């Protein structure tokens, strides 16, 4: 009985299962025929365009030192290590892992700094006080060895004070190559020159093979930094010096131990002879002209070392003119620059060694646009370009050494790169820096007009800016030139300069008509004219002694600003048009349209609406908090933080007060543009925001600050769904378009006969678009590296160029080996590309 029931049950279950698994039955009855108009078929849903960031969330995590980066990436604990790291082993490890990729950055470089005093106070001779010995040191160091053996190929040899990945290097490639040939590694030559000069200076080589002066062995004190590859560089250079008969006292020191010796001590005291210097540039440098004044003359710094520099009068004048842009045309600048490069080598208070490459490792399926100088952490576009490959949304875990290093406030808060990179994702600029060229691009502005005084060497590359020249640029009388902090109103040009004034540059910025409708702060408040006015006021007010928030640190900055600022005028409030008059100018018209002249509400250390700045204003005016570290120390109060800590309670107190009073800061001026109702609405929005997120960091960028956990060293960013721009806006910045150059042509050239060489310029095996190429320059060198000829290659087709060496040109070539080098400069990436081909010149 039981068995029968069981069998029946099983049969039933199997039957049910088979029924469930059976394909759907084909309908036996035909579908009803339509009796009325056919029901419209619902259209295939088109994908909803994504606005704002591609990602939903980014988690910033402080994970300790660089040594944790790769284990955590490989272990799946983080998706990107935002801070650039070095080390050939690390690089090889990333390249060998198919799950990882990287972005390169080129902004840091190393050199040997010399003490330039010839005879110390105690009578000791310093060989490096002699320019010829310093110059000869260029032959004594094998830069290729340093790059290949010490940096494992993660670098480029460096002879000059310009970075090889930046535009000036390609612009002056002919002089660069000639100098590189002239100063190529040659220890014998270095020995010869140095020996000769040492004898002329009164030194003698003792029987032990060591240099001595007045009977005493010359001991060179070499301060060697130990934190990075500079320790090995120091040892290598020491070995070379010992090879040339010097006794070297290698003093291995950390940064803090070394600083008082090399930068603080009087060079004449003779506490040191050499130091392993290291420098960093965090953005693509489009004009490196001021490097000569900075690195070689006393104009660089007030410290004893810089004040001991004694360049030749000619070099000093050229360096000063380049730094002050005291030239009338680009041709004149070129001439000065080329000369400065040569004089820098003759001066050589620094022997440049290597342009270091660092890399930012990440998972291979994660895409992001990195800045060529600053890497991912220095990119202004990371927030809008970071995404998972072929995916919309998702979360990225961003590891870096630390986060929340110092208090965040928009006026004088943290400027640590580990905080600024987070802030870049939260805020946005009016113009952003092209990560590959350093040229500014419009983000919130529609267009700009730049008018430059005739004779100033300004040019333009991109179409969003117009460039005009005028014989004179008069500043209108009703423009604002300064700030009366006592009465809280602007001082007009007519009041400040009764006889009128002129400027070198006038920049007119046009914002789009829907700006104030489209852009909203994270707390929901629409952007308004008051935000721009507050930016203008804060530029001046903190540097004025009559201000309730006067800050001594801001005074010197304001003084510098007023030395070149001539006036600002709001031409139209809706649409917003602002014109600014300046004496400062940049060589690129685009880069004259800075965020400063856009008056966009992005302060020195972050973006902020006027109503959140107002809280900080009240807190500082009442001496409870301070925007800057210096003032916080002076007042013995907290350094203001908008995101955490004891500052929040104080700011909340002033939010309540401001809301109750409908407080409008700088009412005599700002009150003309902001109504009490707007103030009330904004404070209410901010109060709601604070209740939800417990901080006051309110921006307009593609992410908002969702969570700050200082103890866990974690910050969570979430996508701002109200962001008005489509996610594809910056899609073109996937990979830097570094060209590949290949040369084809005869391996033998007969003197006096024409020779033709084909140049193929490609990117990812496709012809490089001609409209993106700035120049294709060829150079011919003999076997000694002497420049024989140079010129521009002619375009034949897209991606194809030709170098034609006429019979006249080849007739001047000496017989023997020669080399053709082609340098291609791109408009869309600052890194030049090179191709070389060797050939033999024979007699006819």
């Amino acid at each position: 009985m039981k068995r029968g029931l069981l069998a029946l049950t099983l049969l039933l279950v199997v039957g049910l299962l088979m029924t469930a698994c059976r394909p759907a039955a084909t309908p036996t009855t035909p579908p009803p025929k339509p009796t009325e108009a056919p029901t419209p078929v619902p259209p295939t849903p088109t994908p909803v365009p994504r606005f704002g960031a591609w990602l939903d969330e980014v988690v910033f995590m402080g994970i300790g030192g660089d040594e944790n980066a790769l284990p955590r990436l490989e272990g799946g604990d983080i998706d990107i290590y935002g801070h650039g790291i070095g080390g050939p082993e690390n690089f090889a490890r990333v390249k060998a892992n198919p799950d990882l990729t990287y972005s390169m950055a080129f902004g840091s470089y190393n050199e040997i700094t010399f003490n330039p005093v010839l005879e110390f106070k105690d009578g000791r001779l310093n060989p490096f006080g002699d320019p010829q010995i310093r110059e000869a040191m260029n032959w004594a160091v094998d830069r290729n060895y340093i790059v290949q053996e010490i940096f494992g190929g993660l670098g480029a040899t460096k002879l000059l004070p310009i970075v090889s990945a930046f535009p000036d290097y390609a612009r002056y490639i002919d002089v660069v190559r000639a100098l590189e040939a002239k100063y190529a590694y040659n220890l014998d030559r270095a020995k010869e020159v140095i020996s000769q000069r040492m004898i002329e200076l009164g030194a003698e080589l003792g029987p032990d093979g060591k240099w001595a002066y007045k009977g005493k062995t010359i001991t060179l004190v070499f301060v060697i930094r130990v934190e990075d590859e500079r320790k090995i560089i120091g040892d290598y250079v020491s070995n070379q010096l010992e090879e040339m008969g010097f006794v070297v006292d290698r003093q291995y020191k950390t940064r803090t131990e070394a600083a008082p010796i090399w930068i603080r001590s009087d060079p004449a005291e003779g506490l040191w002879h050499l130091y392993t210097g290291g420098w960093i540039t965090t953005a693509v440098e489009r004009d490196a002209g001021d490097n000569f004044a900075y690195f070689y003359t006393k104009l660089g710094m007030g410290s004893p070392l810089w004040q001991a520099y004694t360049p030749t009068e000619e070099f000093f004048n050229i360096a000063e003119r380049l730094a002050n842009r005291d030239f009338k045309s680009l041709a004149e600048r070129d001439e000065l620059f080329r000369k400065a490069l040569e004089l820098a080598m003759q001066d050589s208070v620094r022997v440049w060694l290597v342009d270091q490459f660092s890399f930012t490792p990440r998972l291979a399926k994660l895409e992001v646009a990195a800045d060529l100088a600053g890497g991912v952490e220095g990119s202004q576009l990371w927030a809008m370009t970071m995404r998972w490959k072929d995916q919309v949304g998702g979360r990225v875990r961003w590891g870096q050494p630390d986060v929340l290093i110092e208090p965040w406030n928009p006026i004088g808060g943290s400027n640590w790169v580990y905080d600024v990179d987070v802030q870049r994702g939260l805020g946005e600029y009016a113009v952003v820096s092209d990560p590959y060229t350093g040229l500014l691009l419009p983000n919130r502005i529609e267009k700009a007009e730049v008018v430059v005084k005739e004779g100033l060497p300004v040019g333009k590359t991109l179409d969003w800016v117009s460039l005009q020249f005028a014989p004179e640029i008069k500043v209108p009388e009703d423009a604002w030139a300064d700030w009366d902090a006592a009465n809280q109103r602007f001082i007009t040009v007519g009041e400040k300069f009764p006889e009128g004034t002129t400027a070198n540059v006038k920049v007119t910025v046009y914002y789009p008509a829907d700006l104030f409708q489209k852009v909203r702060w994270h707390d929901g408040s629409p952007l308004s004219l008051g935000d721009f006015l507050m930016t203008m006021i804060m530029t001046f007010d903190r540097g004025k002694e009559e201000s309730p928030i006067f800050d001594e640190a801001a005074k010197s900055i304001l003084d510098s600003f007023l030395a070149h600022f001539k006036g600002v005028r709001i031409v139209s409030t809706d649409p917003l048009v602002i014109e600014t008059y300046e004496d400062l100018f940049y060589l690129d018209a685009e880069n004259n349209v800075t965020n400063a002249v856009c008056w966009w509400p992005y302060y020195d250390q972050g973006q902020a609406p006027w109503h959140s700045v107002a809280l900080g204003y009240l807190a500082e005016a009442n001496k409870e908090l301070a925007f800057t570290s210096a003032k916080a120390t002076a007042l013995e109060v907290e350094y203001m933080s908008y995101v955490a800590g004891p500052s929040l309670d104080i700011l909340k107190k002033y939010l309540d007060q401001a809301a109750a009073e409908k407080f409008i800061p700088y009412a005599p001026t700002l009150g003309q543009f902001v109504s009490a109702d707007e103030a009330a609405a904004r404070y209410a929005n901010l109060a709601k925001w604070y209740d939800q997120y417990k901080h006051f960091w309110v921006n307009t960028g593609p992410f908002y600050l969702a969570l700050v956990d200082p103890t866990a060293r974690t910050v969570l960013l979430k996508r701002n769904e109200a962001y008005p721009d489509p996610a594809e806006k910056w899609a073109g910045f996937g990979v830097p378009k570094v060209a590949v150059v290949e040369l084809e042509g005869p391996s033998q050239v007969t003197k006096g006969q024409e020779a033709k060489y084909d140049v193929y310029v490609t990117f990812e095996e496709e012809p490089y678009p001609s409209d993106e190429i700035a120049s294709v320059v060829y150079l011919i060198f003999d076997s000694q590296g002497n420049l024989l000829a140079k010129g521009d290659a002619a375009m034949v087709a897209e991606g194809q160029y030709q170098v034609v060496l006429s019979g006249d040109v080849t007739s001047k070539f000496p017989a023997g080996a020669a080399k053709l080098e082609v340098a291609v400069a791109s408009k869309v990436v600052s890194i030049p590309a090179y191709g070389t081909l060797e050939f033999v010149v024979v007699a006819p």
Partner: protein
Amino acid sequence: MSEQALAIPRKRVRSVSFLQSTFARLLRYTLVRGVTIFITVVIGVYLTVMIANMGGYVDQIRKGEIRENIAIQVINDPAYRSLSADAKRQLIEERVRLEEKRLGLDQPFLIRSFRFLENALTLRLGFAQLMNSNSGSRQVRLILLERLPATLLLFGTENLFLFFLSLFIALMLSRQYGSLWDRLFVVLSPTSSAPGWFYGLFLILIFAGWLRILPFGDLVDAPPPQTPLLYALSVAKHMILPIMALTLSAIFLSVYSWRTFFLIYSSEDYVELAKAKGLSGRTIERRYILRPTLPTIVTNFLLTVIGLWTGAPIFETVFNWPGLGRTLYQAVGLFDVPVIVGSTVIFAYLLAITVFLLDIIYAILDPRVRVSA
């Protein structure tokens, strides 16, 4: 009767005078001891001030750093890129002057050293020069207090766990002298010569890098869970590896030491006598072994507790644990004297109070201790 009546007050007088003299001796002892300890604290703190400042040389270091930092900031700031060379130099000089003034470097070090001492002794810890607390505060008090919970949580849990576990196992082993377990602990005790972070590296490699079942480090998951329970569970998960590492590095030696200590006491004559009297093992353990060793155990325990204040810089670095050790290590690296002095003075006071209290606790715990004349 009358003699007796007279005798009683005489005894009382003797008793009162005895109490008075004992109290006076105790007071005098306490006072002398307190003053001695305080002088030691003053000397210790001033020495810390001098060492932390390298006798004033830190001023030179700090000035060099300020100049280097500001110069690099100015040359890298696009806002100043177009300034003339002279204007740029003036800007650098002005900012250097302000920063030196902010840090008090415009005043002689000797004067500042006594100010440091005075502030430290009165526990006016003030503001740090360069460092911030986790939440961004410059108050030394907050810098230390915000890190204290993480340190107490990890090292407190671990030390208490280790302390009591070691005592328990040691007592057990002292009763089983020569057993397999006893020999095992003796053999493994040299493994404690390696520090906790050393084991930590291996454990991270195995459990985080290879098996991927435990986190590499940190206090909590990122982003941190939003409910207290999940947050606590996350913290607990992050504590597993550090506690394993610390336990592995210390347990064997700790057990070995206590076990040897108990063995020594177990062979005292009075313990043998107790055994001969037929007292139970538990009674012997409690009354004849633990009781006389209590002062040592309490001393050890209290020193362990106040030792938490110093944290463990390398261990915290390996596990990226936001504790006091890394803060102090960072303060030393940055020559942030207020933080170094603040931390030291608190440790000094804690140590002084502990030593002072131990004198009293000894008298209570150990009947052999008396305040002498």
